[in-house]
C-alpha cells in the first residue's frame, strides 16, 4: 500500500522533490503539495483502492504526510 501511495504522489502530487527522498512523516506541504493537487491525489487513491472518501475525512491533515494518507486508506479499505 505504501508503494502505491508513493507512486500516486509521484505522478499526481506535483511535488518539488522526488517522493523517494521523503520519509513517511515528512511534511508534504513543505515538499510542494498544493490544495488543487490533493484533489487529484484523492481521486487517484479512490480509483486505485476502490473506495470513496467520506466527506468527514477530507480535511487538510489527511494529506499531512505519507503516513497519515496510509492510515486513512487503511481504515477505509479494511
Amino acid at each position, binding site marked *: 500500500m505504501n508503494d502505491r501511495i508513493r507512486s500516486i504522489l509521484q505522478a*499526481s502530487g506535483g511535488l518539488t522533490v522526488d517522493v523517494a527522498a521523503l520519509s513517511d512523516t515528512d511534511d508534504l506541504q513543505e515538499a510542494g503539495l498544493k490544495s488543487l493537487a490533493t*484533489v487529484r491525489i484523492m*481521486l*487517484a487513491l479512490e480509483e486505485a483502492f476502490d473506495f470513496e472518501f467520506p466527506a468527514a475525512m477530507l480535511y487538510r491533515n489527511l494529506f499531512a504526510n505519507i503516513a497519515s494518507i496510509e492510515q486513512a486508506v487503511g481504515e477505509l479499505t479494511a
Partner: protein
Amino acid sequence: MSSTTPATASTTRLQETPVATARRIAVEYAAPHADSVDEQARFPIEAVEALRAAGLLSAYIPEALEGGGVRISDLAAITQALAERCAAVGMIYAMHQIQVACLVHHSNSVPFFRDYLKTISEQQLLLASITSELGVGGSIRTSIAALLPGSALCRLQKNATTISYGDYADSFLATCRRTPEASASDQVLVLLQRSQMQMQPTGQWNTLGMRGTCSPGYCVESDFPAEQCLPVPFGDICTHTMTPFSHILWSACWLGIATDATARARASVRAKARKAASDGPMGDVRLAEATRDLQLMRVNLQACLGEYQTLLDANDLPALSGFDFAIRINNLKTASSELVVKIVAQAMAVTGMAGYRNDTPYSLGRHLRDAHSAAAMIGNDRLYTTNAGLLLMSAGTGGVRPERVPPSNT
C-alpha cells in the same frame, strides 16, 4: 383501496422522520420501478402502497384527526425525495396533498369534513382533483358545470380534460359554479366519493413525460349530499391554499428531478476524473453551472416556503390574498419550471452518451421528458400574463421588495 393499520403508521412515526421514511420508500419502492412506470405509462402502485403503509398520505392532517401533523416544508421535502427517484410518484403525492390541504385549511370546522379527514387518515385514502374542464381554456377560476340542487342530493356533471390518477383515487375535489345561475368564476369546491360517481374516460394518457401520473380526461357524473360542498368560496380556497400549495409542491417535485439529474452528472464527472490522466482538466464547468441553477431553484423554494408558513401561522389573510404574495408564488412556479429544464439539459451535456442512453447509471432521458411537463401544467404564459396585470396595480411593492422577511423556520 387497501387500508393501513394505525399501529403501523404510528410505529413508523416513532422510528423515523417522515422525510427519512419517504427517502427510504423512494429508494426501495419508487426507484426500482421508475423505468417500467415510465415505459408502460402505468400507475406506480408499489410506491403508493408503501406511502399508504407508512401513513404518509395523511401527513398534513392534524394529529387530533389521526394524521401526521407535519408542516408544508416537510411535505415539500417528502415530495422532493420521492421525485428524485420517480417524478410520477412525487407528483402524485403532491397532487394528493394539495387536495388534503384544501380540506384541512377550509373545512376542518365542519363535522362532516372533520370525520372525513379522520377517515382519510385511518384508511389512507388517495384524493385527486377535478379542476380542469373542457371549454374553459386552462383557467381553474372559470367553470361551466354548475352544482344542481336536488330534493335529497345535489348533482354535478362535468367534462374534465384531465384528472391525474383518476382511476386510482378514492375521492375527488371538483370545482363548479355555485348554482346554475352563478357567474363563471362564482365557484365552489365539492367532495365527490368514488361510490357516488360515474366516470367515463374521454381519451388516453400518452405523453412525453410524467407518464405514470395516468391523467386522461373523464366525463364525470355524481349525485351527492349537499354537506359535501365546502363552506368557503373556491376563490378563497384557491388563493389561500390551492395555488400556493400547488406551486410549492410542484416546484419541490421538479427540484427532485433536477437534483437527481445533477447528482448523476456529478457521479459521471467523478468517475471520469478518477480514470483521467493526472494532468487532465479539473472537473466540468457545466456541472458547476448546473449546481448554480440548482441552488437558485432550491433557495427560491425555501424562501416561498418560509413566507407562506409565516403567513399561515399568523393567519394573515390580507397578505395571503395580496398581490405581492401572488406575484412571488407565480414566479416560483415559472422559475422552477424553466430551471429544471435548463439543469437537466446541462446534466445531459455533462454526461454525454452515458446520459443519452437509457440503460446506464447516468441515464437522463426520463428526467428530460418529465422536466418538460413543468411549463405546461398550468401554462406559464397564463401566469406571466397574470403577473403582468398585477404589476400594474399601485398597491404593494409588486412583489419586488418583500415587506416581511420570513424567519428561517423551514
